[in-house]
């Protein structure tokens, strides 16, 4: 069935010997393996391992301190055989401040009368944690069919963790992405610069408090399927909450603008001050 051209016959003979069974490997990932991994890490890193979670037969998550972030990678690669770099990213645990998170029925941007929702308490996931941002990474031991997910709390004030680039060269682009999307600094990275976004971009889009502007003017699709039709701007009523708070970011200003039916205007941040200026004189004549 498999035909080889003459040039490959030698090569095929050379590595044809290590043919492996399809069924052979999958049973090896048992709980004992993961427990052993955890205890080996704890032995080496001691206090630096601050949390762990083992899902039996599925996965292991280990949380270390941000100071030990690079040392953990170093140990995993050099001593435990985790030579394969899988990915590196981060999680922002802040509950969405826009009230349209998850299955919330309240849509602050569309309904100015809605009372501001008390934000939920921040709750970290597997292996615990007590910071808003956590870096998240995964490395594999190819020969041993093992993998581990690593987490580390990022200090809110410092917003930095040691870079993995000296250990895993592949972390370079992943850290650039994480830096740009979350604003987490990687100390020792050879060149933190934008990877996806244009160079002059401001803000960190994957942070939970970064507004997704396309969703600010439309109902959240999980709740309502129909889009509101944009009404004529001349019919627009004066919003009850005057948009005077210029210091605040675009969110409250736009919520008022959307309620007045001005949603057809471009939802860019630049339009918000213009609209608040236009409504202000009308307000004063009424008074």
């Amino acid at each position, binding site marked *: 069935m498999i035909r080889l051209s003459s040039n490959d016959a030698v090569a095929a003979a050379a590595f044809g010997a290590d043919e492996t069974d399809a069924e052979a490997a999958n049973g090896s990932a048992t709980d004992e393996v993961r427990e052993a991994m955890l205890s080996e890490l704890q032995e080496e890193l001691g206090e630096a391992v601050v949390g762990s979670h083992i899902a039996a037969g599925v996965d292991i998550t280990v949380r270390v301190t941000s100071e030990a972030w690079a040392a953990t990678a170093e140990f995993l690669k050099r001593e435990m055989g985790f030579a394969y770099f899988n990915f590196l990213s981060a999680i922002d645990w802040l509950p969405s401040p826009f009230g349209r998170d998850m299955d919330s029925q309240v849509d602050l941007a569309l309904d100015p009368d809605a009372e501001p929702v008390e934000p939920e308490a921040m709750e970290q996931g597997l292996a615990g944690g007590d910071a808003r941002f956590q870096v998240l990474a995964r490395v594999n031991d190819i020969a041993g069919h093992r993998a581990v997910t690593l987490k580390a709390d990022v200090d809110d004030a410092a917003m930095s963790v040691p870079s993995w680039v000296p250990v895993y060269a592949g972390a370079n*682009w992943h850290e650039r992405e994480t830096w740009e999307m979350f604003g987490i600094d990687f100390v020792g990275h050879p060149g933190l610069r934008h*990877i996806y*976004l244009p160079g002059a971009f401001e803000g960190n889009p994957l942070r939970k408090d970064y507004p997704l502007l396309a969703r600010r003017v439309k109902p959240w*699709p*999980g709740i309502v399927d129909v889009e509101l039709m944009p009404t004529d701007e001349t019919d627009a009523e004066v919003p009850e909450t005057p948009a005077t708070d210029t210091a605040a970011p675009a969110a409250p200003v736009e919520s008022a603008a959307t309620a007045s039916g001005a949603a057809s205007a471009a939802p860019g941040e630049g339009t918000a001050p213009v609209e608040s200026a236009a409504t202000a004189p009308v307000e004063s004549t009424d008074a």
Partner: protein
Amino acid sequence: MTAVSSRRQLNYIAAQAADARVNLEIETEGMTLNIGPQHPATHGTLRIVAKLDGEQVIAADPVMGYMHRGYEKLSEVRTYPQVTTLINRIDWLGSFANEVPFILAAEQLMEVEAPPRSQWIRTVLFEMSRIANIVLFLGDMAVQVGAVTPVFFAFRDREHILNQIEAATGGRFHPNFDRIGGLKDDLPKGWIVETKQVMKKMRSFCNEIEELVMGNEIFQARTRGIGVVPADIGLSYGLSGANIRGSGVDWDVRRDGTTGAGGLVHNELDWRVWTHPDGDSFSRFWVRLQEVRESTRMVDQLLDGLPSGPIMAKVPRIIKVPAGEAYVETENPLGVMGYYVVSKGGLAPFRVKIRSASFNNMSITPWLLTGVYVPDIITILGSLYFILGDIDR
């Protein structure tokens, strides 16, 4: 883990060093070459800024983001079934394969298991999207070295696969067919017989490509010993799929999965993982060609052993995924693709980290392109085989 063939690699390095010395003696002035963003070798819009010294690249910097669509952010405001519509468009040549790891992650969190029949059909479609994807690569790689004909054969024969995918799912490119707990529909009547005939056609396509492209002396001269990735470097950059197997690393998530994910039934089939010890452009091509053959064999076996039974497990109409975190990865056409899904118990994921194959596979290019000659840039990029949607997400 087999080492790369060191003799060939050393010869190549020695030749490069000799050229570098000549260039130093002549003291040529450097120049910057912009490749892309619109270049046929880039499968999308990728720009590569290459600093040249004569014909040699001294530094290469890929510029991405022309197709960044923010799927990770958008996933946070979409329900789980809606997310599959987005992620269909990550690797657009093998769309169904994109859906699978995400669905499996959601199933893992919900503790739902798809019925056996849907697992088998899922694996059939999974392998068929691999064939559809890689067949295009096999033709496209020839274009990178200047042979235009094979790509037309590839487009012609890929059509058979796409027709079958369309017949089963309703979508040629974006099936959006995988569901939490099973599949949308069962297979249509007569599909199995037709698909087996298509698999025969694909095998003869592989033979055709082997004779037309792989045995070609020009092709071999342009790819053998070019773009050598040693296994340890490939591992530290997180290369996956045929790119790492072409460097002699015997690793395939279909066989060696570490995330305990069920949902695909590769373990019940008779197949093997192909590796090649050289690590050059040619070996990556060779491994992919064998993988297509292996996939056609898998599809045949799957269709022979298709169990009967329901196509969907019992899942609620409105899907709420319990709080938790799951990471599931599968061996997609381009390499390992995984989703890290964080749920807080609602309709939408709290965070989705998309680990796409091409992002890791491309991250080696600054290292790999340094020191190569300008015409080799294109063959190396072609052999790494990335899709921009898979890099930019």
